[in-house]
C-alpha cells in the first residue's frame, strides 16, 4: 500500500535569483518502508522533506499522503494531518526551551487529545527510556547536550505513533552508539509496527542498511 506519493514535484526559489531547487520529483513510498534520502549538501534534501511533511505548500506537483491529496487542504487541515500522521525530527533539534524533556515529548499527544494525560505521560516516559533518557525526563530541555536534545526530538516524533516519521539528519549529532540505537528503533518501527520512515542522512552505513535509498543531485532524483 502506498503511504506517500510524490508526483512531479517542482519548487523554485526566487531570492536572490530564480532557481529551481526541486525538479519534477516523482516517487512512491510503501507503508512500512524504511527509506533514506541521500545526496550532496545543497542538493535539495531538506527542501524536499519540508514539502513532503506538508509544512511547505509553495510547490508545483502533487503530494498524496495516506490517500489524501494534500494540495486541496487548508493550513489547519494540514496541521491536523501532521499532528496525527507525521512525526518530524528537525536537522537542528528544535525543542521548546521553557519546557522539560517530558513535556516536550508529551506536547503532540496532548494536542491530539486522544489519550488521558496520565496515559500520555506514561507513553512519553517509555519513549524517553527507549532512547536512554529516563534520567533526563524532568530537566529543562535547554539544559541537555545537543545529542540528548536530538534524541528527545526523536522521542517526540514517535509519541503519536505516526504513520510516517520524517527526519532531517536525525542522527547528525549522535555518536555511533546512539546512532545504532536510533537505527534499531527505526528498523523495529518499520518492521514490527508498519510505520514508514523517511530519513535524510549523510551516513553511508546508515543508508546502506535501510530498505531503500533515494538519491538527489541538484534537485533531481538520480536513484530511487
Amino acid at each position, binding site marked *: 500500500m502506498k503511504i506517500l506519493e510524490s508526483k512531479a514535484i517542482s519548487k523554485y526559489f526566487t531570492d536572490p535569483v530564480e532557481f529551481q531547487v526541486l525538479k519534477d520529483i516523482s516517487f512512491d513510498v510503501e507503508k512500512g518502508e524504511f527509506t533514506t534520502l541521500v545526496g550532496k549538501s545543497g542538493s535539495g534534501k531538506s527542501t524536499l522533506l*519540508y514539502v513532503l*511533511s506538508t*509544512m*511547505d505548500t509553495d510547490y508545483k506537483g502533487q503530494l498524496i499522503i495516506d490517500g489524501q491529496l494534500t494540495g486541496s487542504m487548508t*493550513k*489547519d487541515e494540514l*496541521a*491536523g*494531518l*501532521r*499532528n*496525527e500522521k507525521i512525526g*518530524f525530527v*528537525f536537522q537542528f533539534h*528544535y*525543542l*521548546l*526551551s*521553557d*519546557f522539560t524533556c517530558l*513535556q516536550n515529548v508529551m*506536547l*503532540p499527544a*496532548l*494536542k*491530539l*487529545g486522544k489519550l488521558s494525560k496520565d496515559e500520555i505521560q506514561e507513553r512519553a516516559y517509555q519513549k524517553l527510556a527507549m532512547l536512554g533518557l529516563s534520567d533526563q525526563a524532568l530537566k529543562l530541555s535547554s539544559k541537555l547536550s545537543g545529542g540528548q536534545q536530538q534524541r528527545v526530538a526523536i522521542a*517526540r516524533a514517535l509519541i503519536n505513533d505516526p504513520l510516517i516519521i520524517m527526519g532531517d539528519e536525525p542522527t547528525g549529532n549522535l555518536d555511533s552508539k546512539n546512532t545504532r540505537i536510533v537505527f534499531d528503533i527505526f528498523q523495529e518501527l518499520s518492521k514490527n509496527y508498519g510505520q514508514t520512515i523517511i530519513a535524510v542522512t549523510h551516513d553511508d552505513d546508515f543508508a546502506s542498511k535501510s530498505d531503500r535509498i533515494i538519491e538527489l543531485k541538484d534537485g533531481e532524483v538520480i536513484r530511487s
Partner: protein
Amino acid sequence: MNINTQIAKTYIITNKKLTGVAVAGVVLGMSIYIFMNSMLLGFDKASSKSIFKTTPHIRVYMDDEISKPLVSSNGKQMLLVNPKIVPAKNTIINPGLVISTIQKMEEVEIVTSQVNANIFYNSGKSQITGLCSGINPEDADRMYAISSTIVEGSLGALKGNPNGILIGSGVSEKMSLRENDYVNITSSKGVNKAFKIVGIFKTNNSVIDKTKSYVNVLASQQLLKEGNVYVTDINVNIKNPDDAEKIAMQISASTGYKAEGWRQANESLMAAQRMRKIIITFVSTTILLVAGFGIYNILNMTITQKINDIAILKAMGFKGNDVVRIFVTQAVTVGVMGVIGGMIMATVIITLLQHVYVGGDIGYFPITYEVTKYIQGVVVGMVITFFAGYIPAKKAANIDPVEIFRK
C-alpha cells in the same frame, strides 16, 4: 487544563520579569485612570455642593423686557430707535399661583419665594454694603442647609421674628457684632430698620460671609417698601440637579416667567469645570494609552522571542488559532492581574487622598470611590490588553514555520 492554556501558563511563569513589567504597566495605567476620573467627579461634586449652598437648582424670576413697538402692523416694518428696558417692576405677579403650579411638578422637591435687597450694614460710623435675602427660614434651610453653617445662635430663632437677622461671620467680625446685638440696616430704597442678631453663619466662602444676611421675607419686603405679595425670585430645588436645565424649560413654559438652571447661573464655574474635565480626561486617557502601547510592545517582544517555539508548535500540528489562544491567554492573564492590582492601587491612592485636608469651604480632599469609573477602567484595561495580545498573536499565527526553520 487545555494544552494551549498550559503552554501560556508556562510562558508566564518562565518569563516572570516580562510578565511583571507588563502587569506593572497595566496597574499604573489603570490606577491613574480610575483615580484621576474619581478625582474629577469629586471636584465636580464639591463644586456643585458649594454652589448649592447659596444657589437653588432653578431660579424663577421676571426677566427685564426690552421695549417693543406698541402697534403691530402687517406689511410695515416698525422700527424703534435705541430701545430701552421697560421700566416695569421685576416682580412676579400672583406668586402663590406660580408656586403651587411648580409644586405640582413631579421632580420638584422644594419651592420657596425669596426677596433680595441690596443694603448697607451700619454700626456706629462704619458701613458695609451687602445683600439681604428675605427667606422663609424652614424652606431655605432645606435648600441651602443654612443651619449646618450656623456658628452662633440658631436659625430657629429667625422663625416668626420679623426683626431677627442672621449675619455672615465676616460681617460680624468687621463690625464686632455678636448674637443679641442690634444692627442698623439701610436699604437702597432708603428704608432704615434695626434688626436683632439671632445668629451668625460661616460658610467658609469669604465673599458670602462678608456680605450676606438672612431675614424673613416680610422684613425684606419692608426694606424695599413693598407689600407682602412682592416676590422677585422663586427658588426651586429638584430631585436630580443634573436635570435642572430641562425642568427649568418646563417651568418657563408653564408659568411664563424666566426659569434659569444653576449651570446657566454659574456659567464661568461651569466653564472651569468643563476645562478641568477635558484636561483630566485627556491626561488619564493618554496615560492609559501609553500603558497600552507598553503592554503591546512587551507582548510583541515575547512573541518575537518565541517565534521559534511557534514554528515548532505549528510543525507538530498546532493550528493558527491555537497560537492566537496561547498568546491571548497570556495577555488576558496579564490584563486580569493588572486590573486587579490597578483597582487595589487606585483604592489606596483615593483612601490616602481622602485624609488630606485642603481647607476652605471644601475641607478634606473631595474624592470618592466612583464605582462607574472602576468599571470603566476595568473594561478599558481588559480591552486594551486583549488587543495588545491579539494583534501580534494574529500576525505570529500566520507565519510559515518553514520560513523560520530555514534561517
